[in-house]
């Protein structure tokens, strides 16, 4: 077994990537789902193994093709990538477990193998970004994941998915191309593509304009892909019209992976080397983060469609993640990373509840959900509990990240007080927009003439509850997430743990 252990980083990407050509060819259609789910589980298992290795203090490095680092492509896994690997592979597995019935209903049987192939490709792309230590290789895998995500979203049965996905394609490609320009400029000045090597060689040229411009391009390009507030326009419709399992998957990880890259570049590469980078970063990101929290939450407050409401909420959460990072402090970054993890848990749970609802309700407008709690008590209970985690009630995972965020803000003096007000306001707004759903579902009378619908299928419900309970598990015993997050923050700030 130990012989295989050293190959884990390669297997992490290789397993989902190389099973895709086989899944395309699987003819009895249920098989494609089963194979995809199994592969995803196995990928999750590898991610757990890697996390254990990282917690063990090992340096997980891998040279592709046996060529050592600056000449060949290196893979490396540290605490920061490990926590995101857990999020991505976990979200994919959970979403696939819940996907079967919904996909059967929405997508013709003949197209299903293609759908699941695209799913695994997206997974492989995300994972590939996370384990890669080579700037250009990251671009390649970013494109795999983006193209596959476009395909997945276009699987939505509503025709509005198509313009939404086109918009996403255009903005995603612009983001990726900006990233490529930035990498090109850095490469021009340093002659290398390996991130660690880049970090060393950038020191000599750090005062030159191309590097500064490159930092700008990379930050903006990745912010576009991460749906940072004014650049978020592609997200709401893409999430709304995608098939629900896809929304579960993407909401939990696609913006997170871009944020991961954003933090990795801005902190690992630029922060120690560029003069005044921390101030520029704060000035640029903090207003956007505050704006995202307030504006996106307000939009969520008036939104009528449940899925889009949650999509706006996701944009607001990106704001929290960046708010922590924009403080450029150890605890702020810890808050940032831990919120990625906790938000993924909460959002996955909420969208899984939406998946439950989608199996029974014709549409997901909030006013058509009147009285649904009587018919689907388990689903709505899960929604309520997951909502509490999103708001950040003590005992839930969401509370942990808000707690860290507030602690980080307190270190900042007067500015910090202002930030705490923003966080509190954002949470109150979250209470309001989630309450609207709860109120309609629990206290309104069922619409006249709506036929009685039953509880959601057991399979999806079980998965949903599993994720909801994990929100409470990581709220009460946050050892894993806090350990990994603070290690990640230390790595980002260049303090070797």
């Amino acid at each position: 077994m130990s012989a295989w252990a050293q190959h884990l980083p390669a297997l992490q990407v290789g397993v989902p990537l190389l099973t895709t050509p086989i899944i395309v060819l699987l003819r009895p259609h249920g098989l494609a789902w089963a194979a995809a789910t199994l592969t995803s589980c196995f990928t999750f298992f590898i991610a757990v193994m890697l996390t254990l290795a990282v917690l063990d203090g090992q340096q997980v490095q891998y040279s592709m093709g046996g060529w050592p680092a600056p000449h060949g492509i290196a893979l490396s896994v540290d605490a920061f990538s490990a926590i995101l690997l857990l999020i991505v592979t976990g979200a994919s597995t959970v979403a696939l477990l819940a996907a079967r019935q919904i996909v059967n209903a929405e997508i013709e049987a003949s197209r299903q193998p293609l759908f699941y192939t695209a799913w695994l490709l997206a997974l492989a792309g995300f994972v590939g970004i996370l384990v890669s230590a080579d700037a250009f290789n990251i671009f390649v895998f970013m494109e795999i994941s983006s193209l596959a995500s476009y395909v997945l979203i276009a699987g939505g049965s509503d025709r509005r998915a198509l313009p939404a996905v086109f918009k996403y394609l255009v903005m995603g490609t612009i983001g990726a191309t900006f990233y490529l320009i930035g990498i090109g400029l850095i490469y021009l000045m340093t002659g290398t593509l390996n991130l660690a090597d880049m970090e060393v060689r950038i020191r000599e040229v750090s005062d030159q304009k191309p590097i500064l411009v490159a930092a700008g391009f990379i930050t903006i390009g990745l912010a576009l892909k991460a749906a940072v507030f004014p650049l978020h326009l592609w997200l709401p419709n893409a999430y709304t019209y995608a098939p629900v399992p896809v929304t579960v998957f993407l909401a939990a990880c696609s913006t997170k992976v871009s944020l991961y890259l954003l933090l990795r570049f801005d902190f690992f590469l630029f922060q120690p080397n560029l003069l005044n980078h921390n101030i520029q970063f704060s000035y640029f990101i903090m207003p956007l983060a505050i704006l995202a929290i307030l504006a996106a939450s307000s939009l969520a407050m008036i939104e009528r469609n449940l899925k889009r409401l949650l999509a706006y909420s996701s944009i607001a959460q990106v704001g929290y993640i960046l708010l922590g990072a924009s403080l450029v402090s150890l605890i702020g970054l810890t808050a940032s990373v831990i919120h990625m993890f906790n938000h993924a848990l909460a959002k996955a749970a909420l969208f899984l509840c939406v998946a439950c609802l989608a199996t029974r309700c014709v549409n997901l407008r909030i006013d058509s959900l009147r009285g649904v709690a009587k018919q689907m008590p388990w689903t709505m209970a899960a929604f309520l509990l997951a909502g509490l985690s999103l708001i950040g009630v003590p005992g839930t995972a969401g509370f942990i990240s808000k707690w860290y965020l507030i602690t980080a803000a307190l270190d900042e003096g007067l500015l910090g007080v202002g930030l705490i007000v923003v966080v509190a306001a954002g949470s109150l707004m979250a209470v309001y927009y989630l309450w609207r759903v709860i109120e309609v579902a629990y206290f309104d009378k069922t619409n006249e003439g709506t036929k009685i619908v039953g509880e959601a299928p057991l399979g999806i419900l079980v998965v949903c509850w599993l994720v909801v309970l994990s929100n409470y598990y990581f709220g009460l015993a946050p050892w894993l997430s806090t350990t990994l997050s603070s290690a990640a923050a230390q790595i980002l700030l260049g303090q070797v743990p």
Partner: protein
Amino acid sequence: MDWLGVYYYWAFAALLMIGFYAVIAKSNLIKKLIGLSMFQSAVFLLYITMGKIDDGTAPIYHEGVSQQIFSNPLPQVLILTAIVVGISTVALGLGIIVRIQEEYGSIEEHEILGIDER
């Protein structure tokens, strides 16, 4: 290659502008896609320009080639990959456009938005 290099670089900037402008300002989806691939081509130009060495030759050994200055092969490899990524994006984009035409009967962005609002 001093000022020529800069000229190449500025051509990259100009091309980037033209393509980017088409992506944002045009309402027709195919035109947007054309702009997008032009936008990407500009970046290809950037990379290939930076790989060129004065008086160098292509990095392929050949019997007749006595010169020993070879241009940098690495940017070329990267751009080979990037070109492939570009055509993949275009193909997928065209697929989406065809589906939009079938569902909406139009490929003008503002018309599509109008149809959905009704």
